């Protein structure tokens, strides 16, 4: 009985901590403004990024050379996005929860767009460096 209670409470607290942890990782990217360059490449019009764009943006991120310091964050946010997508299936039962999951998925997509922006800037730096070395 006690083990069952501990199991249920632990799972509930785990989910709460996991969501808060992912939001703390996402929070840093929310303050970053997307460059005109990345908006042009991805077709993003304003500051809002569509929630379903995450996979497409992640594919573009994978095409750029790795900076070597954002892979862990991308994986954690990817896991969070998958969890939110699973929550999206409950939309007919709990519309408030589904709306919240949609908002969170938009934050994940924005995070991926910021990561893409950083990687593009890094690629351009590498290119400039190579050109300068040849001259």
């Amino acid at each position: 009985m006690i083990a069952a209670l501990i199991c249920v409470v632990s799972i509930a607290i785990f989910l709460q901590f996991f969501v808060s942890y992912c939001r703390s990782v996402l929070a840093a990217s929310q303050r970053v403004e997307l460059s005109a360059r990345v908006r042009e490449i991805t077709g993003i019009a304003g500051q809002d990024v569509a929630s379903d764009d995450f996979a497409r943006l992640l594919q573009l991120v994978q095409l750029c050379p790795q900076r070597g310091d954002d892979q862990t964050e991308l994986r954690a946010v990817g896991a969070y996005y998958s969890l939110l997508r699973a929550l999206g299936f409950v939309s007919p039962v709990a519309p408030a929860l589904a709306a919240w999951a949609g908002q969170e998925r938009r934050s994940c997509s924005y995070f991926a767009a910021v990561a893409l922006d950083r990687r593009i800037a890094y690629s351009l730096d590498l290119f400039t460096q190579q050109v300068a070395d040849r001259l």
Partner: protein
Amino acid sequence: MLGPLDYSVWCIGFLLEVYVVVCSFYRREFLRYLPLNFYMACEALITCGLFYCLRQFGFSSTTYFYYYYYTDSLLTILLFWVIIKFYQQVFEEMGVSRNIRVAAVLLLASTAAFSYAVVHQHRSHLTDRFVVELGQNLYFVGVVLTYLLWGAILKLRESRTRLTQLVLALGIYSSATAGSYALRHLFPGLQPSVLKLVVPIVGLWLPAAWAYTFTKVPEEARLVPAQLAARTR
């Protein structure tokens, strides 16, 4: 038997634990996060001891089994010290450091007394089930303490990103471990298939998350804590 995956998880975990200690030493933050670094160093040492037991006595030996579970229980008690330090950091401006120290001593003394009483009562049959139950209870105390700390962080609008991430990572670790211990207690049949993989991966989480925080989040970074609480409004 342990496979290549188990050994890889083990090695990565050990390297990450060492990395956390070296990183905070290099950044001159060793004393500021002394309990955390001490905990990580003990984890690394116990991992070495575990490897020795494995080589000397084998994976299915009772020595390995009891070494694994009892050192895990000792590490959990050490983890309480880390949590108490986080409490002190959160409440440092309120000047209640002395009260927290007294509460910490009382908590540790009562945990030790309770554990001694339970061990004394079961000394004739310190079984597999008993060690799992002890680990589950100790981790659950850790979950409750971390959850209360998280509540205090939100209430006091603590804005230090690094402290927040360290506490959240600890909360994820404690709750996942307590949950997996409870699952093992409830369904012992899950151990050879599912939990055998879950437990080492959960063990990898804490050094990985702390290493990430120490590397990527500067001490001066700030955030709005209210943004982190999940609300569906």
